[in-house]
Structure formats: C-alpha cells, structure tokens
C-alpha cells in the first residue's frame, strides 16, 4: 500500500468546530437565549437596579453573572447536544468513521469556549461602558481568561451527561443541575446572605469555585483560596473527562 497521510486531528477538529458554529448561527432560537440571559440579568441587576452597599455591584456581578453565563453553553452544548446526536444515531456514524473521538470532543469544547468568550466580552463591555467597572488592564485579561477557560470542567461534566443520559431526558437533567447549582453557589444572590450551613455546602459545588476564581480576577475578596478552587476544578475535569472517554468507547454508546 502506498504512503498514507492521515488527516491531522487539528484539521479535523477545526472543520468540525467551524460546522458546529455554523449550526449555532443557523439556529438563533437555541443560541441567542443563552447569550442574552446573562446579559439581561447583568443589565437589570448590575446596571439598572444597582443596589450595591459597600461593594461595587457592577464589578461583583460581572464575576457572578459571568460565571452563570459561561457555564450554560458548556453544559447545554455538551449535555444536550451530545445526548441528542447519540439518540439520532449520528454519533454512532461518527464513531465508525476514522475521525478520532478526541476531535469530536475538541470541536465541541472549541464551540463552548467561543460561546463563553462572547458572553464574557459582552458583559465586560457593558460593565466598562455603563457600569463604571474599572480594572487594571491585566485584570481584564485575567477575568476573560478565567471565564473562558473555566468552562472546561463544565464541558467535561456536560459530556459525561450527554454520553450517559437519554436524549429526551438530557435537557431536564441539565436544567436540574444548572439552575439549583448556580443558585446554591451564590451566582444569583451573594453567598454571604445564606445561612452558615448553606455557605459550607457551596464549597462542594463546581460553579462556586469558578465564581471564586472570577471574584479573585476582578479583585473582589474571596472565601476559598485559589489553589483549592483550581484543584477542585482540575480534578473535576479529569474525573468527568476520563469517565466520558470511557463512555465514548463503551459499546454502542
């Protein structure tokens, strides 16, 4: 047999990412709400009804609604998107193709990162223009980086849900995780207003840790040391990442 040049994983991932983004753009009914919800929240509670006492609310909410906004596309595009493609049989066709499974995951992660970047940029722009959010230049970059790359653990969690929950149940499962987890992690109401027990409970939840890193990035006081949050999120990525890849290779997933 003559020499064979396998298409590189980078190329496959890039093509797949492009098509995923194209699909999102062509279905604004799905993508726009995830983009607009956090923006609406931020404009409402952060900029219009600014009830800050002591803390600068637009800055505080940039971190908390930012976290709320960026984890949604990760959980939904993976959790629901993968479950649906699995139910349709499309994923099986893809598994039988020579495209490496990792390329599938990379392209979906790429889309989630792009989405998260859009949410983060929108909120940061609104905050800077209308909320008088003033950060050092490095902190802007740091906040953006935390919000965008902080979605990776949630991509892993979403992928695991997508590979293990039935297609029609996936939206319910993701919502049941996303909304209560966001509330209990203090993304809507600052955690300091919670009873002590609930404040402790929040430490167990992933959005709490991403929010902690985001608060740190915008220069707000944090409860958990950064190394705790970083370790938590890294372990989470590893656990769900490995479990998902196992599901991917599992029979007839």
């Amino acid at each position: 047999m003559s020499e064979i040049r396998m298409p590189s994983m980078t190329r496959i991932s890039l093509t797949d990412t492009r098509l995923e983004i194209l699909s999102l753009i062509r279905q604004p009914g799905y993508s726009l709400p995830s983009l607009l919800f956090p923006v609406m929240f931020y404009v409402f509670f952060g900029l219009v009804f600014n009830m800050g006492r002591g803390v600068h609310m637009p800055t505080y909410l940039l971190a908390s609604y930012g976290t709320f906004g960026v984890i949604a596309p990760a959980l939904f595009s993976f959790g629901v998107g993968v479950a649906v493609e699995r139910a349709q049989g499309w994923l099986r066709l893809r598994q039988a193709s020579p495209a490496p499974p990792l390329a599938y995951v990379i392209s979906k992660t790429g889309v989630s990162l792009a989405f998260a970047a859009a949410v983060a940029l929108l909120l940061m722009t609104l905050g800077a223009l209308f909320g008088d959010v003033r950060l050092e230049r490095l902190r802007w970059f740091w906040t953006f980086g935390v919000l965008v790359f902080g979605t990776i653990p949630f991509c892993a969690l979403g992928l695991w849900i997508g590979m293990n929950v039935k297609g029609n149940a996936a939206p319910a499962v993701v919502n049941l995780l996303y909304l209560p987890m966001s509330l209990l992690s203090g993304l809507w109401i600052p955690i300091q207003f919670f009873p002590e027990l609930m404040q402790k409970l929040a430490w167990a939840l992933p959005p709490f840790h991403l929010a902690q890193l985001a608060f740190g990035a915008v220069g707000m006081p944090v409860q958990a040391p950064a190394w705790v949050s970083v370790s938590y999120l890294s372990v989470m990525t590893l656990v769900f990442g490995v479990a998902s890849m196992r599901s991917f290779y599992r029979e007839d997933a």
Partner: protein
Amino acid sequence: MSQIATGLTNAAKSFGKVRAVDDVTLELRPGQVLGLLGPNGAGKTTSIKLLLGLLQPDRGRARLFGVDPRSREARMRIGVMMQIGEVPAVLTIDELVEQFRGYYPNPRPAGEAIELAGLGALRDRRAGKLSGGEKQRLMFALAICGNPELLFLDEPTVGMDVASRRTFWEGIRAFLDGGRSILLTTHYLEEADALADRIAVIDRGRVIADGTPETIKSRFSGKRIRCRTSLSPTTLLGLPGVRETGGSGASVELISETPERTVRALLDADAGLSDLEVIGMGLEEAFLSMTESPAGTEEMSA
C-alpha cells in the same frame, strides 16, 4: 482454523438473555459483494456492528484487514452507511460531505460522491429539508466520499420505492468499478440478488446458508402447496417439482419448484384431495422452511 483477515470468526454476542449473534463465521473477500440476508431480528445489524467495532464480541473475533476494527487504520479504509434517525438538520449536503471527506486520507472529490448518490441537484440543500429517500442517499454519499475499499451498507434501501431503489443500485454498481468490496445487509432477496456475488443467509444469529445467488435462490424459490390428501409422503416426494414435504396426518405441505405441474399431478393422483392452497415463498416463510421443523411450520400458518 485459518485466520480471517476481514470478517467474523465464531463470533457470538448477547444482550442480556437475548442471543443476537450465536456463532457467526463470515469472510469478506476483496472485490466481492457479500449480501447478508435475513429477516428482521436475525442478527444482521449486530453482525455489522461487531465488524465495525461498535460492539465487542462475547466470544470469537472481528477483524478488518487483519486488524482490530476499532483502529483508525481499519476505519480509514471503510465507509459506512447505517440506518440513523436524523442528520444535523441545519447543515447542507455539501457541508456534511466535506466534513466526512476531511476524516479520510485520500477522499473522493465531493462533487463525484454527491453525483454518485444522485444528489447533484441538491448540494446546497439543508439535510433537515430532505425527504426520507434523499436522506438515505446522503448517508450513501457520506459512506463513499472517503474513497473506501470496503463499504458497509446496512439495509440501504429500506423504505424506498421501486424506482429510487433501482437508481440507488446503479450508484452502488458505479462505486464498485475499481475492485472494491461491499457488505450489504438486506431483507430483500431481490436486492441481494441484484447486487451480490455471494449471499450469506443469517437467521437467529447463525449463518444457515452461504453461496452464490443462484444456489441461494434455488433454495428459496418455488411455492408452498398445502392440502389434505391421503397420498403417502413417498408418493408426494415423487411428484414433479416437489423438493420437500412436511405436515402431519392428512394435512400436508409441499415445496415445489414448479407448482403448476405439481398441482396437476396431485389432483390426478388423488381425486379426494381437499383444502388446496398454493402460497408464494416469501423470505420470512422461506427461512422457516429452512430452519424449522414441520411442527413449527404449522404454527406459522395460524
């Protein structure tokens, strides 16, 4: 036992208590079109999934080109058309074919694959807007766009009307120019006969016949004749065209290659004959005639 480079060797696969594939040995040879024929639930799709590495056999082995079917080397030499529920609805035929071409080292030009699938006029149409038959042709385009040596077609023409089925067959024949091989599953004998060089009949997870279409057809051809008669089984077997006899007591069943001649001879031989029925051998029935005892055949007639 000799090593099968591409195929299954004594493969078995159960799902819980259901034994989908019991003991299948099946060799795919280069340049050959193998039709895997069997009724629904016979184990065709499970056999294909074992060969594709989407399922792992409980016993036995599956190999593609001598290697594990899950390996990338194996998968880049095959194309797969499966029955799937939906395709990504907002992408066009062109985009999906380009996506799959990108997975292969040496793909066929996109236009050629789309043309062969008979979708030339619909390149820019979104997959969600295609009819059922067009979606199946899109699946075919995706299966051949990687320029594979071996093509898997799982029930490719289910639900197509006669005309589109024939057009589709032409696409498959065009694909074959150039020494490629195909494994095709179908429950239409006609389809297997039109396309395959070799037919393996699978029933209840076992290969019950493997041979040229002529051999297989001769086993499945003819008609079933039922009647009440006082003639002995030996006499019945001696009638023109009769291949098999069965039944119990006065109620008998014959399988005949030439039913008209058999019936004439039957009526001549037994003036008291009653309840005469002549039934075509549908594939489902033909399977029963090959695999079941006469008692089982009785059940079938209920």
